[in-house]
């Protein structure tokens, strides 16, 4: 109902360096380097607290940030944000940084 649970490797398995608003990330287990734009680093930070569904990830992110989703009218805004977040999570999955349980 809430969708699949996602997980990421713990932060000590990654090296990150901020570059001009973007994040360079070295993923130790795969030896691969990625450049991440927000909200990708924030999604990984949210998963540092443990596996979570997309709505939970969004809630964790909202503890620290005011989230701006795609422009939608009132009631649709939250579900719009969730849909976009799910797309972002899928990108992280494709890059091998997030997987589903």
């Amino acid at each position, binding site marked *: 109902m809430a969708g699949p649970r996602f997980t990421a490797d713990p932060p000590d398995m990654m090296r990150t360096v901020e570059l001009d608003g973007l994040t360079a990330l070295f993923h130790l287990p795969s*030896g691969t380097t990625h450049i991440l734009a927000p*909200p990708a680093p924030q999604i990984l930070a949210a998963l540092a607290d443990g596996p979570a569904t997309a709505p939970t990830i969004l809630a964790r992110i909202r503890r620290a*940030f005011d989230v*701006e989703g795609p422009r939608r009218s009132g009631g649709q805004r939250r579900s719009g944000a969730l849909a976009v*977040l799910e797309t972002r999570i899928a990108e992280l999955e494709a890059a091998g940084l997030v997987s589903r349980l």
Partner: protein
Amino acid sequence: MSDLEDQKPAEQSPEPSRRFVLALGAAAASTVVTIRPALAQTAGSVLNCQIPVPAPQAAGSYIDPDGHIVAPGTPGAFPPAPRPLTGEEVKVMLRGGPSPAGIDSQSAQAYANYIRRLQAGMSGFTCYASLQMPR
């Protein structure tokens, strides 16, 4: 952490200017760019990738002889590998070569079977996949 966490939007803080705005971006934009090697011949150096056995998500679980993850202490199953295995070590193991330093041959076989069962999205899969690629 429970999945039934409160999903209400965060309370409006009395000083909203203290919080940063995080834009999720348009659905079509791309937020992850993976660096590819400049020269194909230097792709996927096996020396630099590692496979934890089992993956961190199953930390503490044991591995049965067929490579399945089982509860810790299951009879006939093997404890987690003492350290992540390097791509080079895994390559040798999968070819039936000697087990890595500090690991007995029966455990190594179980680990090898675990690695063969890795799927996309599981920690270490990228490393395993790059071992399969011809140079």
